[in-house]
């Protein structure tokens, strides 16, 4: 035993020395790499600052205007920040229209549309990618074709339809027509296509019903796609303009987009108040966005599937 140890000691020492040299080398390289890395990080941060300022400029400026007395905006002199900041614009905007109610309506409508689309699109995409049935391709093409129909082309007929059902001025009229989307079906199907069909077959053999397969296996696996689509859908629903304008009559049913146009009145213009209103309705969506962003990004990045 000892002999063996002795015998191997010498080569060990040699190896040790070699390792030491390598470590030394490595440390030098590391130090250089760290320096380099530091420089790269510095450049990266600098570039990011420039880019972020560029992207955020319009928003920051809007916030600035919202605090300006209207006289300060209407000058030809340079006025990036308010000299005498005031909250008057916000007070005016809030007292003119029930913004809180508008924001609530928008969240309700956009949230339910998003939820509904995730479910209906998951179901449809599941069928299109894992099941076999007659007319599958034709149906899929039919669904895809809907993406290309401009909304303006259908709005008049749709108004008549919902009007004849007595749906006007309700939440459902804002939600139901948007409960599915070709874009969502397309995106989910695109993701499902990258799963092996054996995944489904294995589940089938284990006696997992289709619905459970969708909700316990497929949906968790497609967080990336769902995240992307949820954001997309929510924003689009939040931005709807023509349809809510047509189908809502009461102030209590209006969404933020319509509410904002109430501040943009015809004969008088008071831009600072209008911008204060704009800032107020952007705030909730941005805060939600910032709060939810961690989950959203995590969902997108930890997706089991490559985007």
């Amino acid at each position: 035993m000892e002999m063996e140890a002795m015998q191997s000691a010498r080569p060990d020492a040699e190896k040790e020395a070699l390792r030491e040299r390598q470590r030394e080398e490595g440390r030098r390289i590391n130090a250089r790499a760290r320096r380099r890395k530091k420089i790269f990080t510095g450049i990266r941060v600098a570039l990011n600052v420039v880019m972020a300022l560029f992207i955020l400029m319009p928003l920051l400026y809007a916030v600035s205007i919202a605090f300006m007395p209207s006289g300060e905006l209407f000058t030809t002199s340079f006025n990036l920040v308010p000299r005498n900041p005031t909250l008057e614009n916000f007070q005016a905007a809030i007292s003119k229209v029930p913004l809180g109610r508008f924001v609530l309506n928008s969240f309700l409508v956009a949230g339910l549309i998003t939820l509904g689309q995730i479910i209906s699109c998951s179901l449809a995409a599941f069928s299109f990618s894992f099941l076999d049935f007659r007319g599958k391709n034709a149906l899929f093409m039919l669904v895809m074709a809907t993406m290309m129909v401009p909304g303006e082309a259908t709005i008049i007929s749709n108004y008549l339809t919902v009007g004849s059902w007595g749906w006007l001025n309700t939440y459902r009229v804002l939600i139901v027509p948007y409960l599915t989307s070709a874009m969502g079906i397309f995106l989910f199907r695109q993701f499902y296509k990258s799963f092996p069909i054996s995944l489904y077959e294995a589940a089938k053999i284990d006696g997992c019903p289709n619905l459970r397969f969708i909700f316990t296996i497929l949906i968790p696996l497609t967080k990336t796609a769902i995240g992307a689509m949820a954001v997309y859908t929510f924003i689009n629903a939040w931005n709807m303009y023509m349809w809510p304008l047509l189908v809502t009559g009461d102030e209590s049913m209006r969404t933020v987009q319509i509410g904002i146009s109430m501040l943009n009145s015809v004969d008088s213009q008071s831009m600072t108040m209008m911008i204060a209103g704009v800032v107020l309705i952007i705030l909730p969506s941005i805060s939600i966005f910032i709060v939810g962003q961690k989950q959203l990004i995590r969902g997108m990045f930890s997706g089991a599937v490559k985007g």
Partner: protein
Amino acid sequence: MKRKFLMTTAGLLAAAMALGACGSAGSTATTAQSAASAAATEAAADTASSADSASSADSSATEVAADTQDKVTITFWHSMGGVNGEALTHLVDQYNSENTDGVYVDAQYQGEYDDTLNKLKSAQIGNMGADLVQIYEIGTRFMIDSGWVVPMQDLIDRDGYDISQLEPNIAAYYTVDNKLYSMPFNSSTPILYYNKDMFDAAGITDVPDSLPGIDAAAADLTGKGGAGEAISMGIYGWFFEQFLCKQGLNYVDNGNGREGACTKVEFDTNGGGLNIFKQWKTMYDDGTAPNVGKGGDSGLVDFTAGKSAMTLGSTASLKQILEEVDGKFEVGTAYFPKVTDSDEGGVSIGGASLWALNNGDEAKQDAVWKFVKFLVSPESQAYWATQTGYFPVTTAAHDEDVFKQNIEQYPQFQTAIDQLHDSAPQYAGALMSVFSEARQDVESSIEDMLNNNEDPQEAVDKLAKEINKAISDYNVVNS
């Protein structure tokens, strides 16, 4: 299959709940939802605290509706947003709480004028809608032809109401075949706003009363006066119409569309259009009136910012202009300019009027009339005028204290009143069923002329052709 369908539905519901409850499955959906509910509570709290007036109005509405089942409820669609909307809401609330007519008015804002008219069309197709609707002045012919309305005159006659108290030059616009079709409510005229400080600096004492006069004063204003530009004149179809009225010329045939539906435009053959286009282009080429954009408000910004020495605008903008100028300089007002020095015409009005819709319900029509009567009463009109800058449509409103104080505070308003009184009913302006389109065509055509350096004559001819086609197309399918 039915059971399968039921199962699917049940599954959907279960899934929805699972998505809501469990964090790992569909994290984004949960986020959105919890976020939404958080915002909801926040927003609700917000509404409760800050928008007190709105919510109290709401609750009083339900109260009224609840405790008086036998009240007649009428739906009133309007286009008054912002400041004006607030003033209108105040009037409606006042009527609802004070009236002894047994009427409840449900006022609903329907977006801008175009949106309201558009919505009315859809609503009429869908056979449901309002009892009273506010429509802008250029929608008048369309409304008359539509067959959806009860002429206001019928309601007036039934009640024996005396309409001589209405401002005659305003009533003239809405009077067709000796019938007052709709009740004027918010009326305005265009005036010239000018920067008195700049005029003083330039040593100009007589404010120009015509476009050539403005052009002549331009050099002094931009030189000694220190103005960036002499006049900021928004490219606005309404101004074109007013310039025709100032010349005393017709826009369309058939007595300016007042003796019958028009069949073609006349501004190309009577030379009125060319005068305007030529003058506009001259002023643009001279740098007197640069292109500040399309629409009624587009010239105002330059003025209130102290860049332009003059601007054209609605009287309804007066209050806002004064607020924005905020004492930086003195604001003067003058008559809307003539196109040539020899013009003898007057100004027409803009704004909107109230139309009673024919819903076959006598009680509702009665209620509509009572409410309209309230809106044009001297007290209401005095309040309305001081809050918004629109004219009082009722002459007696001038005697109300609120109104007098307002004139004292804003003497510039007197110009608008004098101008209207100096005009005559024969300059009431045109009626045309495709007026919204024509107005847009006019604006595009002036823009094109200025931007592409087109010949005014060619521009007028092209414009006339476009509008004529629109008129004839309309007449083919709608007569």
